[in-house]
């Protein structure tokens, strides 16, 4: 499925995804992030979308699961970032100075530990080379919103990596 077809068939359900997210999360920013995440996930599975009879139902199902997972995550991981620091540090930085290969592998692990939306955006931009306006088109979001999430993701990778390696 190409971008134009995606925009025609999937983006019309964006408002429903947003209102449903807002109802579940009761937070404008969180709801907007959920919409981006849902649409990026739909974009990731665009080759298989034609197998689904009802894209709207699929979108709502994904939205529901993402929102419920977000709520669950918020309850359980108030200090998730700190937990992740220690978890990754314990498993990967037994030596003070890591080897280059280990350091690269650690970057990958940190990216995998990012929240889904940040992971999706950093993957699309830094690994797949999407323009920000393309990501904005896919998600139907403002480009500034995409840029903000990309910036958060990159800064988070840097902060965790530096912290584990005791770099100031």
């Amino acid at each position, binding site marked *: 499925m190409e971008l134009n077809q995606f925009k025609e068939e999937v983006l019309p359900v964006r408002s429903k995804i947003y209102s449903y997210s807002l109802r579940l999360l009761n937070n404008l920013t969180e709801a907007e992030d959920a919409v981006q995440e849902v649409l990026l996930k739909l974009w990731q599975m665009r080759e*298989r979308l034609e197998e689904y009879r009802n894209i709207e139902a699929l979108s709502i199902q994904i939205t529901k699961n993402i929102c419920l*997972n977000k709520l669950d995550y918020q309850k359980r991981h108030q200090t998730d970032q700190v937990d992740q620091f220690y978890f990754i540090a314990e498993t990967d930085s037994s030596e003070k100075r890591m080897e280059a290969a280990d350091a690269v592998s650690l970057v990958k692990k940190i990216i995998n530990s990012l929240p889904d939306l940040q992971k999706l955006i950093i993957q699309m931009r830094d690994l797949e080379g999407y323009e920000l306006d393309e990501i904005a088109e896919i998600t139907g979001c403002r480009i500034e919103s995409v*840029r903000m999430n990309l910036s958060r993701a*990159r800064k988070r990778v840097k902060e965790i990596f530096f912290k584990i*390696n005791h770099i100031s």
Partner: protein
Amino acid sequence: MNQCEDIKLLLEKYFEGNTSLSEEESLRNYFMSDMVADNLLKYKPIFVFFAESRENNAIEYSAEHIAIPVNRKRVIIRALTTVAACGLILLGIFLLPKGQNTAIPDLSCSGTYIMIEGECFNDPDLVFLHAEQTLNDLSLLFENFSTSDSPAVELNE
């Protein structure tokens, strides 16, 4: 302005999400080279990871991303509910009386009776008559058997 300063500025832009694709490519190229300034070496693994992943085209996240996110707690609850429902149905099947027909008394066979060829007989005279008839049939059979020259097998005909 030297290259190191340029890269520092680009890095600032990069972490704010303000770099273009070509600027990001030049960052990757810089960090993949052997010319990285000592004070910037700390960034090298990040850009090496992106450069190598793009070169290898080995994005190992795809499967994880394509999977539809599922609320595991709800799935577990749904599975347990299904199992419990099946259990109740099976329990119900085994605990129900085995067919209500057996509970209905057969009035024709009440009291003292004898069953002959699937029929109930309460009347002693009828039973006697039936028994007598059967004995007569038997005696006739033996009579035929003892007087006949035919093999016993033919008696069945």
